[in-house]
């Protein structure tokens, strides 16, 4: 992570001045002659539109220089703005790279208190929705396009009527981290007595908040510090993948796992889960259990910890399976030893369970050490009880006006169809959607809001950490921020930035001491993207031991039935990103499935039901049924069927014709169908909670087969059983060891490399730079942020499901995931794989036209306009990292093309392409260094993948720089190279996986 600072900060120096200027500008009424937004609009449309045709095959046009050069904008030079990601509620800091007036790339904001410089795949993909042609451009009244004047008139009339009649107004949102929005909504609702703001999360963790209300007297979501924990126990919480704030948690998690230092330290992570999550795949130890066993295990653990603490509790340990019992005993001992330095988290949305988790953390003294209620998180605020009540109200027709922001209840909630009918009966319904989603289709008014990159917003994801969202482009359509709409309806129209600035002036300025004037405070916030303020959080009450109760026994799943687990996928979450093709094409980090959701079964269960990969099964629960293709998932608990939420969104049939169309091509999604199927019908909204797992379902093969498309077909480093010779070793591409072994011998886990003889030693010395990369496999979680980062940076096209089916995905960066069946379960390793920039590159020798050659700085260059497409290089690549343009991939969407990086060529058909270590960034940094005279140091150049990595697992630098990080890591005892034996001399090295577990596991025979 240390290597990641520098560039962003330096880049933003130029922006600091404009910050001052902006302040002056925005002191004036908006939309005067030359506001920043208006020139951004000009540049965004004028220059970008004139640039775009240059990228297509159309006639080339002359680039017309600015008549009046806008201040601070240099054609071809990037401007960076600090802003906040709007992909989920985590509130990660981003830097938006603007080229010629249009944002083209989002990067993590180094030093941001939430994300620390990384981004997740969603954050990386958030530039695409800005240029989505299907985003709503104008307000809608009853399905008809309208204008703001009419909408405002009608809504104000209805509101006036409601006010007169005393009708009830309900404002339904997701977790709202923006204090300004919170405040504005409160102001708005204050006009309507009896009105309420209801908040829910589609991926609800309401039980954690409720449990803290019970045990600590405050309804708060604790702030977790995984870095401070030596022992991490997670019960079904996918905190590295999808849970609450994965980037923040990944960075924290890695902070507790430092190997490349004088005193290596490695936290221990034990994961209990029923499906195989990304977090589970990274755990030091992982135990597959059924959802109902999790409750028992937590109870048992709580009982043992209570016993150790000498605390009597009103429940006893349930009887466990012998191996579980041993594990829990051992775990209780370990946790007790690490009191105050441990953390237990649970992802089950069950109140009683979460209360017990609180008890464990309390007894271990973890509060205010590894998790904090004094610095609580606002990232998750939903209240399922409120939601259930509201749904009931709506269904009973008790609501007069409903405002919906940031959630999609008709889709998110079970029984959405019925809810839709009920919503239609409400006299005044307003949706602040960006697309005509399921809910917007049934509301009377749709008041489209800006894309986050067009908005002024703030966020306080963690109490006291204020993060800023500032626009990087003028709104592309006639959209309007929610707060503006509310001020209009309240009768005193205020612009968005004004509302926000007012809040900041009145509420936040006084809560800080750094800056003496508000102007400075505001500037600093815009420049850094965040500020810290005092957060007067009321201390919680003492732990209420009386609140502890036994967890009710879960219903037992009968033997011929399965337990259903509903979970979010890393790119789709609850379905907010269904219009983002990058995220659909992002292989799921674990299953590697694209463009679909599936029913995961363990291999044993699949055998039991006689189904194979891709067979369609019907999942049935009473009257509810859903047909999905089967995915066979090693490591999953037998007797569980796992289905991803967030699919089957209305409008995803837009992807029917994504990818090349030809004689035998299959559509990515059939006409009128959706990408994946909606599994929310199996959610339960009862007893005041949304239930995600543990309900009983039966499955039945339908006899049909629908292909599931994955980017990886083979999952083991051992060769298939029937084809193995005796003693054929596991392929040593991913090497691993345990912490104990590593301490004894830092080179443990290595694989002997045969002595090599270099026929051409000394033919080409690298006298200047010699670029290289090191990937720390112990740190890499496989989250795949780098995959999307690379796609965004390098203009990699989306090719559609059918092309991926044919193994023609275009991602330059892929993450190989291998399973290793051991005596104690399934081990998983993630290995980022991309061009290894071999110094003796086999691809180069075979190219007949010198379209791929080596640079004097050790880069394996690909010359797109010299390539004739023999594909010999790809055949001869031992890593199979080259990508061929099998077709001219569609680039007809002019708006979408605005997200293209002008520094990178858009490749045409018949051309080979691959990772080049982001050569455009190397060149930019080199010319920067040449003009400034400052020599390049580590961190001046950051590849897209490196910049994005939340775990800091990617290191790029100069192998020739003796004092540099790369040279240091190169001599790490953990470092090895994949296929070193071949003598291709790759410039990419990997650092061995080190697991913190008792002893190496016996390798079970793999089939």
């Amino acid at each position, binding site marked *: 992570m240390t290597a990641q600072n520098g560039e962003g900060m330096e880049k933003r120096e130029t922006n600091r001045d404009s910050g001052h200027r902006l302040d002056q500008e925005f002191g004036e009424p908006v939309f005067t002659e030359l506001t920043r937004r208006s020139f951004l609009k000009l540049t965004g449309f004028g220059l970008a539109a004139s640039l775009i045709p240059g990228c297509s095959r159309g006639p080339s046009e002359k680039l017309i220089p600015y008549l009046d050069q806008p201040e601070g904008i240099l054609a071809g030079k990037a401007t960076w703005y600090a802003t906040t990601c709007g992909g989920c509620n985590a509130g990660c800091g981003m830097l938006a790279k603007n080229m010629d007036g249009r944002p083209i790339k989002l990067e993590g904001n180094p030093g941001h208190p939430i994300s620390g410089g990384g981004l997740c795949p969603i954050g990386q993909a958030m530039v695409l929705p800005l240029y989505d042609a299907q985003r709503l451009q104008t307000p809608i009244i009853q399905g008809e396009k309208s204008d703001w004047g009419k909408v405002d008139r009608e809504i104000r009339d209805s509101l006036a009527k409601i006010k007169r009649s005393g009708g009830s107004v309900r404002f339904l949102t997701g977790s709202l981290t923006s204090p300004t929005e919170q405040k504005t909504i409160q102001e708005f609702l204050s006009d309507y007595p009896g009105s309420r703001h209801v908040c829910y999360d589609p991926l609800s963790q309401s039980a954690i908040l409720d449990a803290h209300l019970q045990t600590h007297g405050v309804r708060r979501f604790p702030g977790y510090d995984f870095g401070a924990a030596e022992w991490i126990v997670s019960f079904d919480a996918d905190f590295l993948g999808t849970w609450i704030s994965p980037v923040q948690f990944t960075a924290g998690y890695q902070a507790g796992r430092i190997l490349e230092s004088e005193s290596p330290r490695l936290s221990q992570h034990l994961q209990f889960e029923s499906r195989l999550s990304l977090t589970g795949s990274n755990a030091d130890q992982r135990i597959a259990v059924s959802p109902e066993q999790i409750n028992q295990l937590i109870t048992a653990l709580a009982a043992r910890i209570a016993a150790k603490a000498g605390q009597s509790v009103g429940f006893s340990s349930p009887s466990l399976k012998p191996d579980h019992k041993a594990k829990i005993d051992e775990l209780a001992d370990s946790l007790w030893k690490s009191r105050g330095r441990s953390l237990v988290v649970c992802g089950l949305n069950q109140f009683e369970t979460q209360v017990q988790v609180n008890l464990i953390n309390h007894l271990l003294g973890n509060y205010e050490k590894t998790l904090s209620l004094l610095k609580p998180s606002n990232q998750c605020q939903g209240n399922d009880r409120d939601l259930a009540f509201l749904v009931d109200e709506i269904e009973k027709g008790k609501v007069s006006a409903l405002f919906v922001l940031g959630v999609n209840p008709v889709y998110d909630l079970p029984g959405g169809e019925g809810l839709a009918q009920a919503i239609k009966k409400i006299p005044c319904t307003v949706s602040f959607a960006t697309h005509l989603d399921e809910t917007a289709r049934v509301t009377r008014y749709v008041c489209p809001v800006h894309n986050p990159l067009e908005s002024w917003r703030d966020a306080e994801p963690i109490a006291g950490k204020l993060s800023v969202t500032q626009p990087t482009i003028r709104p592309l359509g006639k959209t309007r921020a929610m707060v503006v709409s509310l001020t209009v309806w309240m009768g005193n129209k205020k612009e968005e930035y004004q509302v926000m600035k007012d809040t900041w002036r009145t509420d936040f300025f006084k809560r800080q001491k750094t800056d003496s004037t508000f102007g400075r405070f505001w500037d600093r916030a815009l420049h850094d993207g965040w500020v810290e303020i005092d957060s007067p959080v009321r201390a919680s009450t003492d732990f209420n031991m009386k609140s502890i109760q036994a967890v009710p026994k879960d219903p037992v799943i009968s033997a011929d039935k399965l337990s259903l687990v509903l979970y979010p996928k890393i790119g789709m979450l609850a379905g907010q990103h269904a219009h983002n093709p990058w995220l659909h094409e992002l292989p799921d980090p674990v299953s590697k499935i694209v463009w679909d959701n599936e029913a995961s079964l363990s291999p044993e269960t699949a055998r039991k039901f006689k189904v194979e990969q891709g067979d369609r099964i019907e999942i049935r629960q009473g009257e509810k049924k859903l047909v999905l293709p089967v995915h066979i998932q090693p490591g999953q608990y037998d007797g569980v069927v796992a289905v991803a939420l967030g699919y089957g969104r209305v409008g995803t049939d837009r992807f029917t014709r994504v990818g090349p169309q030809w004689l035998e091509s299959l559509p990515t999604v059939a006409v009128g169908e959706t990408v994946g199927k909606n599994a929310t019908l199996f959610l339960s909204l009862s007893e005041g909670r949304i239930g995600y797992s543990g309900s009983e379902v039966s499955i039945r093969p339908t006899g049909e087969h629908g292909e599931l498309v994955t980017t990886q077909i083979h999952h083991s480093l051992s*060769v298939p059983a029937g084809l193995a010779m005796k003693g054929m070793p596991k392929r040593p591409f991913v090497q691993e060891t345990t912490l104990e072994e590593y301490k004894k011998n830092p080179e443990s886990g290595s694989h002997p490399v045969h002595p090599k003889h270099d026929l051409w030693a000394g033919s080409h010395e690298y006298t200047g730079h010699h670029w290289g990369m090191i990937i720390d496999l112990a740190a890499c979680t496989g989250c795949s942020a780098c995959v999307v980062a690379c796609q965004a940076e390098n203009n990699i096209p989306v090719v559609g499901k059918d092309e991926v089916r044919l193994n023609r995905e275009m991602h330059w960066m892929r993450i190989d995931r291998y399973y290793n069946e051991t005596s104690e379960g399934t081990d998983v390793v993630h290995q980022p794989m991309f061009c290894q920039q071999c110094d003796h590159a086999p691809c180069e020798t075979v190219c007949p036209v010198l379209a791929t050659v080596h640079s004097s700085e050790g880069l394996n260059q690909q010359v797109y306009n010299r390539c004739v*497409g023999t594909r010999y290089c790809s055949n001869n690549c031992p890593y199979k990292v080259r990508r061929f343009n099998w077709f001219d991939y569609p680039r007809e969407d002019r708006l979408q093309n605005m997200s293209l990086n002008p520094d990178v060529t858009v490749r045409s058909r018949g051309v080979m392409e691959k990772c080049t270590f982001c050569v455009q960034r190397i060149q930019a940094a080199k010319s920067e260094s040449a003009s400034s005279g400052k020599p390049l140091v580590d961190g001046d150049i950051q590849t897209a993948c490196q910049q994005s990595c939340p775990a800091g697992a990617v290191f790029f630098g100069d192998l020739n720089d003796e004092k540099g990080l790369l040279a240091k890591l190169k001599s790490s005892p953990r470092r090895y190279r994949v296929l070193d034996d071949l003598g291709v001399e790759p410039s990419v090295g990997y650092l061995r996986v080190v697991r913190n577990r008792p002893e190496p596991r016996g390798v079970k025979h793999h089939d």
Partner: protein
Amino acid sequence: MTEDTNVRPPLIDGNKDFQQVTEDICAPMERRPTNLWWVAILVSSSMLLLGVVAVTYQVATGIGTWGLNNTIGWGFDITNFVFWIGIGHAGTLISAVLFLFRQKWRTSVNRAAEAMTLIAVMCAGLFPIIHMGRAWLVFWFAPYPNFRGPLWVNFRSPLLWDLFAISTYMAISAAFWYIGLIPDMATIRDRATTKYRRMIFGILSFGWDGSQRTWSRYETVYLLLAGLATPLVLSVHTIVSFDFATAVIPGWHTTIFPPYFVTGAIFSGMAMVLTLMIIARSVMGLQDYITTRHLGAMCKIVLTTSMIVGLAYATEFFIAWYSGNPYERFTFINRALGPMGWAFWIMVGCNVLVPQLLWFRAVRSNVAVIFGISIFINIGMWFERFVIITTSLSRDFLPSSWASYVPTSIELATLVGSFGLFFTLFLLFCRLLPVIAIGEVKGAMKR
């Protein structure tokens, strides 16, 4: 190669004189085509048309219309290329190598075999061109001077060696074939009954008059060309095998490839010559010239090369095991027993097992059975290339990128089209030019 050294049977049957030989060989091209010929040309040109449509579509749309993928960059395209190049080897073998070895029986088949070579090389040459992402850029392969600054080609790439090898082979084979045709075309010119025929063959025969001075130089050049073509034919398939042998992919990176490929080429080429000769002798009524003794001699070459090819298969497996290289070992186990093992066993069955029947004299003299065997070998040798190319690529080093390959309709149509091109051109050759070298047969006749 002769049946018996003491009592050498005549080269051709029917106790013919020179005039009769000329009559017989020229007859098929001077009379109206038979119905069988019409049917054959109709079928083959339809196949060609299908291929043209498929290739046009592919060139217009993209290589994606083939079933290739990131892991398997070559499939039917290079399989067909190597297959056709292999077929193209028998012509030069029969013309040049057997000429140098003074095998007189070659005279009955060398003309057709050379024509076959040319046509096969044309078919082969098509594939590297259409397999490129953008076929119209094929001239970028040529090291031509240009004004874009230094912009040359990579002489280290086996694909470039291929270009030189194939174009040289094509040029030398064409020269060899045409030189051989000149005296025969003069013969046709001088017996022509129509004005146009006389005129056309008059132009084509370059004013050949059969003078001793010309014959003497002609013979010298013929011998020189034969001497040059013999190492050439060995070099061409050696270089084609370098496409694979110089790569790092297990299953490709093998030193045995040059001799293995050359033998395989001769084997497949001989089989194709057999197929064609058996068709030609019955369609064109040339049983007296292409006798069962000729076929028998070719069968013996087929049997010999089949066993060499079989030995090469076995050697590959032995070396894979003996090397101790786990990737290499796996590749060969996978080749035989993996998901594409069926292709391997087709290859072994057709190339090693079926030709063993040729040990029997009864088989060698049964034209129908020989024909069947030759077809099996054609299929088997196609699969040999398919097996080498695709099974090696499909599962190389990193299991994460292991993949399989299924051809598309476009690829199948292209393969069919290449056969269409081959047979169409061969049938036209049979109609328009003497299928048998008239002069050479006369020279080799015992009178």
